[in-house]
């Protein structure tokens, strides 16, 4: 019996083989190789030459790198709170309404729709001076002012992922037992008090989950930067992910870009570890 069981373990393991082999070749292997690449001076055109840890030494004294780290944290500091507050607010607003499902479907749409197309629509709508909205709304010059450039990238990112946040909060809202809310009401709590002292504390797991998803998202979402601001003006929106792209494929410094990737991966793994810890608590 034990032998039969073991045998079946193996046989079932075979089913995971295709997925595992693809991940091994195109995920784990590059994941390890990046450590090696990060010790190279490499343009991608000529053969690489090993330079040891020079890339890292250069990295830590590179003002552009530190500016990029700052931009990444600034971006996260904008995105995370607004993502959480808006997700919770909208989930509350639509809870139990007849249009709940339609609204969720509509909010989810931007996340699925082509980024290239979406950014084109955003650009033509919101371009300062020429944009379609500029005719009757004061559109700040987000192509020149660092603050508004960041605001634009943040708004675009929120626009794309808000539907997901609302889904998460809403799913957790539905799992709160109605009796709990009723009991609080019977005890004389006002709707605001019920929200504050009963519902919100019970949403903690959802908030934690979104916090983690949001921070991983903040570390990796640089496509919006590429499409809307190209890191500008003056590097104000050059988040780490975009910094890597720019170094590697516009300045052709792949070895150096690999070193930045290693730092970025380290950060992401830290966040993911925190994720494990936080999610265990629930």
């Amino acid at each position, binding site marked *: 019996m034990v032998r039969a069981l073991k045998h079946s373990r193996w046989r079932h393991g075979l089913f995971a083989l295709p997925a595992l082999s*693809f991940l091994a070749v195109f995920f784990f292997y590059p994941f390890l190789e990046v450590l090696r690449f990060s010790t190279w001076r490499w343009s991608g055109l000529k053969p690489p030459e090993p330079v040891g840890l020079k890339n890292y030494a250069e990295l830590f004294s590179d003002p552009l790198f530190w500016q990029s780290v700052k931009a990444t944290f600034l971006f996260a500091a904008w995105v995370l709170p607004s993502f959480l507050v808006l997700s919770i607010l909208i989930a509350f607003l639509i809870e139990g309404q007849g249009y709940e499902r339609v609204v969720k479907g509509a909010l989810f*749409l931007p996340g699925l729709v082509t980024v290239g197309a979406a950014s084109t629509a955003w650009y033509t709508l919101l371009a300062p001076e020429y944009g379609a909205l500029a005719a009757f709304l004061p559109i700040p010059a987000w192509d020149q002012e660092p603050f508004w450039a960041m605001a634009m990238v943040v708004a675009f990112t929120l626009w794309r992922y808000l539907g997901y946040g609302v889904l998460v909060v809403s799913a957790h809202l539905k799992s709160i037992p109605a009796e709990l809310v009723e009991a609080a009401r019977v005890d004389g709590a006002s709707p605001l008090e019920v929200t504050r002292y009963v519902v919100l504390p019970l949403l903690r797991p959802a908030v934690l989950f979104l916090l983690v998803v949001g921070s991983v998202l903040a570390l990796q979402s640089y496509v919006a930067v590429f499409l809307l601001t190209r890191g500008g003006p003056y590097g104000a929106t050059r988040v780490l992910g975009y910094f890597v792209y720019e170094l590697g494929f516009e300045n052709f410094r792949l070895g150096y870009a690999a070193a930045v990737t290693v730092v970025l991966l380290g950060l*992401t793994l830290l966040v993911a570890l925190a994720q494990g810890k936080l999610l265990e608590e629930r």
Partner: protein
Amino acid sequence: MRHALVFLIVLAVLLPFFWMAYAAFLPPEIVYSGDVLSGFGFTLENLKKLAPEGFWPRLWFSLLVSGSVALLQVGTALLAAYALWNGVPLWGVFLFTLAIPVELLLVPLFGVLHQMHLLDTPWALVLPFAASPFTVLLVYQAMRALPYSLVEAARLDGAGEGGILFRVVAPLVFPNLVAAGVLAFAAHWNLVLYPRVTVGERYWTLQVWIADLARRYPADWGLLSAAALLSTLPLLLLYLLFERRIVETFEGSVKG
């Protein structure tokens, strides 16, 4: 008050879509007049201008590539999810890969594809995406919602494991497979930077092509909107067809 707020939010979220659909049919004179609200007009000229720019072959190519990726991902995920459901202890491996998006591995993937001589081939667009931990997660969650006794009963009837998976389990999770497939398709369809660096112009996907079009004709909004609208249509149709399943599959994965 509450309804008005919700209405405003939804309007703001959908505005870019309405604008895209409107501007795609706007005559160039109105666009170039500098005031798009100066007049109304309807023209198919923008759509016609797409053909000489090479829009249609790009569209078919992108459909083919993203479609193959979606099929591969659902296939590998169905198999892997069945292994997980039968207690093969690989969950940690998939969770780990889930935390790190492919776009973060842009530089090392470029290097690895270079070593394998896959750069600048269509394979570079397909093979690295043939397995996705996220798709595995979605299919696995769907399987876990089924009673395991189904599998045991089929085993007692003498069915092989492959037969159980394809004839018993797969039909039951089919709606979730479709939803996972649509999400996989959308994720791949939306890649911009990855195809841009791993393949040359010849194999650019529609998204890269549009980003490039926007660089070449920054002021021709009619043309850009037409390209944007048509490139969004395949996803829009898929989404409208399977909206309920997609949202439910997503919710299922969130409840976990």
